[in-house]
């Protein structure tokens, strides 16, 4: 009997934990435009992507984003980061993270160095001021992002705007 009670308790705890993890994880879609401008590379475009975020508590979250952009060829933009969000219906988010650009770009030689073949790496900070939670759905418009890029030859600014983003929790 004791064993049965213990097993039941463990299963219940596990289910609660799973439920909690799912409900703290949101996934969504976004449309974005981004550009990176260094002396050795111009990379950017407009497109769309997917994102996932995990709430560490009521304010802090970590997130991962993948987007596919067209303009100067096509390239994949991967971003990971962490951010702080306000509680409530109006949920502005402030975040920082890393960006990785893979694929098409306009490349330039700098001095005697040939055009870089390395991916574009960036540090970014961003703010989503027009971000709201309606029921369980989070809607965000005109998220702005800025930072620094390099392709391991030169450095320059990068910027981005997430025109519209929709997120929903994975669990109840």
């Amino acid at each position, binding site marked *: 009997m004791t064993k049965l009670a213990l097993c039941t308790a463990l299963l219940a705890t596990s289910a609660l934990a799973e439920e909690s993890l799912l409900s703290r994880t949101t996934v969504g879609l976004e449309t974005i435009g981004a550009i990176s401008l260094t002396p050795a590379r111009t990379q950017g475009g407009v497109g769309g992507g997917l994102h996932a975020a995990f709430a560490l508590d009521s304010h802090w979250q970590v997130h991962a984003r993948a987007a596919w952009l067209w303009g100067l060829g096509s390239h994949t933009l991967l971003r990971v980061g962490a951010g702080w969000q306000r509680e409530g219906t109006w949920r502005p988010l402030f975040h920082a993270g890393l960006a990785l650009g893979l694929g098409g770009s*306009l*490349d*330039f030689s700098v001095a005697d160095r040939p055009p870089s073949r390395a991916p574009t790496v960036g540090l970014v900070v961003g703010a989503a001021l027009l971000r709201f939670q309606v029921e369980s759905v989070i809607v965000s418009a005109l998220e702005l992002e800025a930072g620094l890029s390099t392709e391991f030859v030169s450095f320059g600014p990068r910027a981005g705007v997430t025109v519209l983003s929709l997120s929903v929790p994975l669990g109840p």
Partner: protein
Amino acid sequence: MVDGSTAEKARAIGNEVVGARVFADVVSLATLHSTDTRIDCAGLNTRADTWCNLTNATARHFIEERFRSLGLTPEFDDADTHPATSNVLVELRGTTKPDEVVLLGAHFDAFFMGADDNSSGVAVMLEVARLLATRPLARTVRFVGFDHEEIGLVGSTRHVQSRKRPTVSLVLDCVGFSNSTPGSQGSLPGFPVPAAGDFLAAIANDVSRSRVEEVLQVVKGQPTPAVLAIVAPGRGAGPLSGNLMRSDHAPFWLAGESAVFFTDTANFRNPNYHTRTDTPDTVNQEFLTGVARATAMSIVAWGDAP
């Protein structure tokens, strides 16, 4: 990557360029354009003040005669386009890899005197032909004067469609104008080019990226203008890189072939572009000579590499 002995040979031949000869050819070609009969521009839906001042016939004849004087037999590929098109070309058969072709081309039609656009490119092509005429490379080298680039890359498009495709091509268009004054170089957003217009742009796409790397390698430390390599993504046909496709390399890019484009950037630097003032006195002989060296070095490096 060009091996050391090929690079040395390329540099040695490149440094045999005679600048005065190249410049003299620019003067001759520009003079011929100024006295040539204009093409029939009736029916061309374009600006008459410019398009009715396009010439090609005597420049083609000049190239033909130069090829003959070098002991080469030129070919023509006449086509009944409107206006009629006829590229002129010769091939120097390769010694060990004759089936692999390295192409050097420049368009010979021009508005007004067309000193920079494109007598400069034709003159450089003829100088490289002179340097190589008596010493063939491992690969076949094809020299092509393209007709009617200005009307819409007509000659080069026909060439790509009708001839054996080259292993790699180098196209010259507007290679004689430079200005070292800061601010003299124009650009577009996303093109971080130097402020002074005294560099040679070597433009490639993803297919020809390794070729432009070889150009940079072989001209490094040589008496050539600074070379700015620009690599367009993919085939180069994206909406934001269209300005990189404004010459005879574009049909090669669109066909998926490897091609590099040498230019002084034309109207982004030269205020005489497509005007009556595109005259020989605006061409910088030292810059032109350096471009000829870089061109010869590139062709030898590509043509003679193991």
